[in-house]
């Protein structure tokens, strides 16, 4: 047996471990959120109302759909439907870009109103609202970075699929990129209600 031998289960196992590190990374921000919510319950509600619930909900639906498309892409490649898999990968990337474009408009509006980390206007709204928006921007910002990374990974997969280097026999890269993408979705599943839906 040589070192070149593949271990697809081991590859997936390693990817899951990496995803756990991502969960713990985000958990630091969620711990700060939880403590601050406990300290400033009303102000968090007030701040939450300043966020645009429509942008938030649409982005949630966009990400959930992108999770669907990448999951379908994996099934497609396993069934030998390479072209369909490629289309589904590109759709996922398209939805990711839609998410980021929404975010761009959403944040442009807020920053235009003087709401961003370190702004005097934000500080003037009081400690509770300041903390809310600091954590919101840093968490959503870190999440957006992961959207970019995930979309890039899927882009690489798409190129390799087009070249025939990703196929039913060798789909580990797609599998693991899909896992990463689902994590990006999972973070948003928690981020959305905690920031956008507080009463």
């Amino acid at each position, binding site marked *: 047996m040589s070192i070149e031998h593949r271990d697809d289960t081991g590859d997936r196992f390693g990817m899951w471990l990496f995803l756990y590190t991502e969960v713990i990374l985000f958990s630091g921000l969620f711990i700060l959120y939880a403590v601050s919510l406990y300290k400033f319950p009303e102000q968090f509600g007030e701040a939450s109302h300043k966020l645009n619930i429509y942008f938030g909900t649409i982005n949630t639906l966009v990400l*959930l759909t992108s999770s669907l498309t990448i999951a379908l892409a*994996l*099934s497609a490649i396993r069934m030998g439907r390479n072209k369909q898999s490629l289309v589904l990968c590109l759709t996922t990337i398209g939805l990711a870009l839609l998410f980021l474009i929404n975010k761009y408009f959403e944040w442009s509006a807020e920053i235009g109103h003087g709401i961003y980390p370190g702004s005097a206007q934000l500080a003037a709204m009081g400690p509770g609202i300041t903390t809310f928006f600091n954590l919101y921007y840093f968490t959503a910002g870190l999440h957006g970075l992961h959207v970019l990374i995930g979309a890039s990974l899927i882009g690489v997969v798409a190129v390799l699929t087009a070249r025939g280097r990703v196929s039913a026999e060798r789909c580990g890269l797609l599998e693991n990129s899909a896992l990463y993408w689902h994590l990006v979705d999972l973070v948003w599943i928690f981020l959305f209600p905690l920031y956008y839906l507080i009463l």
Partner: protein
Amino acid sequence: MSEQQHEPVPYRTFILTWLALLILTTITVVVSRIELGALNIWAALAIASLKSSLVIFVFMHLKQESKLFRVCLLVMLVILAIFIGLTFFDVLYR
């Protein structure tokens, strides 16, 4: 060490799960507009956990993986709970 590839999951399973996720999202938004006091946050977390379970077990194929994968997920969640919980032993009693 030849590995069996997992059988491809039919499209239907994923689409049904996706529809469930859309429904749960709707529920989350609706419930969040009802004044429940402290219960609001727990309701939101409960629904988010349910959505996550669907993504993890169906989309991420954890249902098809070996027991080891599920045990490791549990280990991570326990450690996460400890980090959050023990921090609150400080914050709640200041």
